[in-house]
């Protein structure tokens, strides 16, 4: 558990943030300039705010009231910087191995990381000849191989293509799940938040605007996520069965969902995200439709969203769902609080 | 041809500085002619004269350089004259024992594992004379390995003042209260130490000749004697 409390002025900008990052992956989310990097720097001990209290699992890293400021190298936090910061005088391989001599050999091996990041061919290359994305992958590997007690990742995937992103995202989860390394992850991308976050800290102008579980933070429209695609529900599920036609059936709460095949074995806990805009509503159970997931539910709350749309909160067997529909449909279907409806979710829209 | 008001430029060996400054002061008062002194090693000055330096009069610390200039017809040969002479002495630190008789003295033994300070024995006049003297006295073979050579004679003296060397060979004119004379080298042990002066062919000959004459006046000689020089 990481406890953070920081106050600092930088020119016209005031940082005043207090939050707790429990075990798991904590995502720092917020606009450009909202103070995310400043927070990460302060945790790493690279910046010394006027008031700072940073405690990692009972180990006080900074405490300005007691004059405690553990030097950066003794903190053992892996830091993936927003701008790479690779050592150009060393080869890719030596960059990767840099942290090894200062840290006890640990659970993360060079071979695995190289494999994971797809940088096997680059190992003897000169840093300067790498492309932007290649650099960032090396930076990620370097931080992981320092066997950190906690990982600080400042927009680590922004420079990567989707494919690579899709490969790496689960790895951050794996780091956390299997190795128990907590992660503080800075990003602008909602899909990363939803796939990773145990806890989300939404920053706004140097202050914590909201914090909590992603399902709570993301179920309501907010200034921080202007992209409507970000609103949705996040449900915990168990892999129940793999069907022959490539579909996976999940047990979600008291209900079931069909999703495209996942690699997870039966019994694994996964998280499904259902974006509000991917949910269709109908008054009667629809027939002959290509959507395989049809759930009955009751409208709990209606919330205005934009001039043309509203957010509908539903109680369903799989748990709370949110749907975004037009005001016209709301009227056409005569929906209101308490109405029983069917929620239709395309299988292909889901990912577990 | 030159204006009386133009100072005449005298290139002189740096060891002559104190006496020449006094002479120049007197000359300016008595003759109304200002003197500019450029003081450096004889070799430096002679080379500069070879390259057209604006000197009117040159006073060297040894003959060699004056001969070299004469060979190149840079001086008015007729004006060449020795204006001063000097003697070579062996000095030690003030607290060292009484004077020594060089003939019966083993300098090498006295030095022990310490060093005899001299100016460069093949290059700087004081060193050249010193080497001649030591050879003449039969001391050279024994002391040669123990000699510390300096780039100028004042540096040799300073080694004794600092106590780094017990003895140094310097000019009589270098003597100062921090050191004492241990022995005086006999005049015949080395070629005569003379300061030849000559008027430069390309300079203000007339004024320089006047000043050169002034240098040879008795009253001026008194000044030389006051500073420890002898006069030929």
């Amino acid at each position: 558990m990481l406890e953070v409390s920081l106050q600092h002025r930088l020119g016209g900008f005031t940082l005043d943030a207090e939050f707790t990052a429990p075990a798991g992956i904590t995502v720092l989310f917020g606009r450009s300039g909202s103070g995310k990097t400043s927070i990460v720097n302060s945790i790493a001990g690279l910046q010394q705010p006027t008031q700072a209290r940073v405690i990692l699992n009972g180990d006080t890293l900074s405490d300005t009231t007691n004059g405690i400021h553990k030097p950066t190298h003794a903190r053992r936090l892996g830091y993936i910087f927003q701008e790479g910061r690779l050592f150009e005088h060393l080869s890719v391989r030596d960059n990767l191995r840099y942290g090894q001599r200062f840290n006890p050999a640990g659970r993360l091996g060079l071979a695995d990381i190289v494999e994971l990041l797809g940088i096997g061919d680059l190992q003897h290359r000169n840093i300067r000849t790498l492309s932007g994305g290649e650099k960032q992958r090396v930076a990620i590997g370097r931080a992981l191989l320092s066997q950190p007690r906690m990982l600080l990742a400042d927009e680590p995937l922004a420079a990567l293509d989707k494919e690579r992103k899709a490969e790496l995202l689960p790895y951050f989860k794996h780091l956390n799940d299997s190795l128990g390394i907590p992660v503080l992850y800075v990003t602008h991308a909602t899909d990363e938040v939803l796939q990773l976050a145990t806890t989300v800290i939404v920053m706004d102008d140097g202050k914590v605007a909201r914090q909590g579980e992603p399902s709570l933070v993301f179920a309501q429209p907010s200034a921080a996520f202007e992209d409507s695609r970000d609103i949705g529900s996040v449900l915990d599920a168990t892999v129940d069965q793999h069907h022959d036609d490539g579909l996976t059936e999940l047990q979600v709460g008291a209900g079931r969902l069909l999703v495209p095949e996942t690699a997870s074995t039966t019994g694994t806990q996964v998280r499904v995200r259902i974006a509000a805009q991917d949910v269709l509503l109908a008054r009667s159970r629809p027939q002959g439709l290509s959507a395989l997931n049809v759930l009955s539910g009751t409208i709990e709350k209606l919330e205005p969203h934009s001039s043309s749309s509203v957010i509908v909160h539903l109680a369903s067997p799989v748990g709370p769902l949110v749907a975004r529909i037009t005001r016209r449909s709301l009227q056409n279907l005569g929906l209101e609080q308490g109405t029983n409806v069917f929620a239709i979710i395309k299988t292909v829209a889901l990912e577990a | 041809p030159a204006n009386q008001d133009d100072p005449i430029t005298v290139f002189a060996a740096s060891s002559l500085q104190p006496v020449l400054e006094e002479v120049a002061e007197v000359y300016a008062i008595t003759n109304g002619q200002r003197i500019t002194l450029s003081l450096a090693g004889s070799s430096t000055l002679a080379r500069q004269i070879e390259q057209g330096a604006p000197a009117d009069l040159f006073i060297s610390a040894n003959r060699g350089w004056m001969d070299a200039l004469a060979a190149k017809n840079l001086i008015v040969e007729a004006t060449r004259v020795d204006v001063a002479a000097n003697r070579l002495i062996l000095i030690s630190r003030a607290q060292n024992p009484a004077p020594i008789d060089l003939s019966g003295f083993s300098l090498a033994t006295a030095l022990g594992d310490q060093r005899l300070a001299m100016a460069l024995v093949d290059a700087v006049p004081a060193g050249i004379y010193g080497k001649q003297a030591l050879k003449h006295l039969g001391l050279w073979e024994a002391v040669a390995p123990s000699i510390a050579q300096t780039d100028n004679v004042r540096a040799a003296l300073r080694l004794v003042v600092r106590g780094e060397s017990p003895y140094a060979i310097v000019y009589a004119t270098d003597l100062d209260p921090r050191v004492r004379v241990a022995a005086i080298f006999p005049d015949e042990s080395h070629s005569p130490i003379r300061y030849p002066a000559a008027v430069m062919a390309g300079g203000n000959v007339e004024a320089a000749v006047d000043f050169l004459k002034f240098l040879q006046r008795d009253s001026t000689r008194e000044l030389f004697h006051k500073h420890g020089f002898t006069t030929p």
Partner: protein
Amino acid sequence: MDWLSAAEWSIVSLSMKVAVLATLLSLPFGIFIAYALARWEFYGKQLLNGLVHLPLILPPVVTGYLLLVTFGTQGVIGGWLAELGIVLAFRWTGAVLAAAIMAFPLMVRAIRLSIEAVDLHLEQAASTLGAPPWQVFRTITLPLILPGIGAGAILAFAKAIGEFGATITFVSNIPGQTQTLPTAIYTFLQVPDGEGGALRLVIISIVIAMSALLLSEYIARRVAQSVGG
């Protein structure tokens, strides 16, 4: 300045004049040659590099002698300059040349080092914005190498204040015309009882050079602040 005698004052002001001019006049050449050595490949580059370092390698007397032979009134270049009315030998102008030549390797190395440290990517960025090479140099490279230029200039100034061997060999030791602090100190050291006078001049030298040093550090700090602050 009644704590300096008239003679001392003339020595000090001449030394200052010589050192300042030597530094300022050689700066453009220093920057140009440092740039050429750092960035260009050309025939004879190593020769130029060696030539620049020569005054450092050779005993100053030799450098002075070479200057005398070249720039003296009888010298190849000296004779030609004399026809243009420029006389260097035995003038304070020659002292400027001697000091500049002796300080040149120090200046060039410092500047070259900072040119080599400039990130070429920034120069590229400037050129994509339409800046032709000379403007790239003026607006990007030059500001970025200011610390190196400062370091080079201060080294050159200090060296110019302390230069003795080449100066006395080239322009002699003529009071009021070519007698700088070091040659005056030398003169004092050549005579009995001269140490006192030499010490005064040594202290003056130190004060001048230290003031310049402090000033340069102060300016560097101000520049760094206005850039980095």
